Structure formats: C-alpha cells, structure tokens
C-alpha cells in the first residue's frame, strides 16, 4: 500500500485482494494515515486491486464515516468494471465520487 500526501489531499494506492482476510490490515493503515494527515480529500486508488468482495464496501463505508468527522471528502479512482459494479450495487456513489479506470 503506497501513501502520498500533499497536505490537503491524501492519496492511498491500494493493492492486491480486498476480502475479509485482508481488509483489517488495510483499514488500520488507512485510518492511521487519515488521523496523521487530516486531509480534506482522501483518494483511494484501485489500480492495483486484483479482487474485491463486499468486505471492500465495508472498508469504504467505514473510512467514509471516519472522514466525515472532519468533513473530508472521498474519491475512489481507477475502479475496474467488477469493482465498479460492486460499488454501485452498494450505492457507494452517494458517499463518494466513483471514477472508473481506463
């Protein structure tokens, strides 16, 4: 997981598979970065995510709640067709800006 911050904008490049097994470690790392950087915008980049099930939805919803404490926004970028489909199914577009990958 790669993290880059430009003060206001925190970008986290997720990688690998997001399932119930892997989500916990990802959650802890993302929350640590949010608490440390206090961004006004968090961008989660999914370019290198090879699989996601509904555990990824829980991960996104939880981070949305965490960001809301400071009124920060959430963008999800480079979503594959399959990940986009799962995000839409959960209505995540009501919480975050969704952007498909190339």
């Amino acid at each position, binding site marked *: 997981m790669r993290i880059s911050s430009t003060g206001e904008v925190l970008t986290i490049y997720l990688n690998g*598979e997001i*399932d*119930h*097994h892997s*989500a*916990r470690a990802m*959650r802890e790392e993302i929350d640590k970065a949010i608490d440390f950087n206090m961004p006004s915008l968090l961008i989660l980049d999914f370019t290198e995510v090879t*699989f*996601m*099930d*509904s*555990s990824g*939805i*829980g*991960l996104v*919803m*939880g981070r949305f709640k965490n960001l809301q404490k400071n009124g920060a926004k959430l963008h999800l970028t480079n979503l594959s*067709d*399959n990940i986009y489909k*799962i995000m839409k*199914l*959960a209505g995540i577009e009501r919480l975050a800006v969704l952007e498909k990958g190339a």
Partner: protein
Amino acid sequence: MNNNKFTLRIPSRSSNESFARVTVAAFAAQLDPTLEEISDIKTSVSEAVTNCNVHAYPKSIGMVYISCEILKDNVIKIKVRDKGCGIADIEQARQPLFTTGGEERAGLGFAVMESMMDSVRVSSKQGKGTIITMKKKISQKDNAR
C-alpha cells in the same frame, strides 16, 4: 463435461477465503466463461465462505464444505455448507445492509451473491448449519462470438 464435480473441505480460516474462490474459479474455467463471469463466481464464493467464517463459526474454527458440479446446459452449481450456528431469520439475513457482523461489515453478502448468480438458495437450521446453493449459466464466449 456434465456431472464433473469436486468437493473441498477447509477450515473456516480467513486465509482460506482466497483459496476457496480461486479453486472454484479454476474448476469453472472448463466452461469457458468470460472474465466477468469468472469474477462474479469468485466474488460470490468469497461472500459465501466469508459468511461461514464470520457468522457460522464466530468464535471457533469449523469446517466449510464447498462442492461444485457442472450441470447440463453449461450451468455450474456451487454449494457452500457449514455446520455452524445457523441463521435465525433467513429473510432478514438476505436483506441488503442487514448484518450482525459489526461496523466494518456492509451486510451485502447475499445481495452480491444474488446480483451475480442466476439463483441463490439458502437453507439453514439453527444449531445445525447452513447450506447456500448457487447456480449460474455460463455463456460460453466462443459460441457467442
């Protein structure tokens, strides 16, 4: 290929979620599915197995039984069974966003399975366990071209 089948028996460890979905996907590959179909199958198996790990055996490790069978007309049947605590109210469990799994669980496991598979059947007995039976017809992309 009709009647080809396998059964897998694995402990309900979260590290096996990936193994289970990849194994089922590898078996389904003989039906020549599209990438989207393979992804749908992997996601649905992941949801069903995660349910066993999180809900059926919340405090201990139990066995999860996965069986797959190829039926006629290019249909794959996937059964995920546990001998865990069972579901008290199946209708409620199938409702989107309902979960007993805490804040980090979205409660969308069944909704995902239902949207990605052609049919999802749930039978459960409290204290005995749960069986999820899913079916999906594979389009056979070579014929569709």
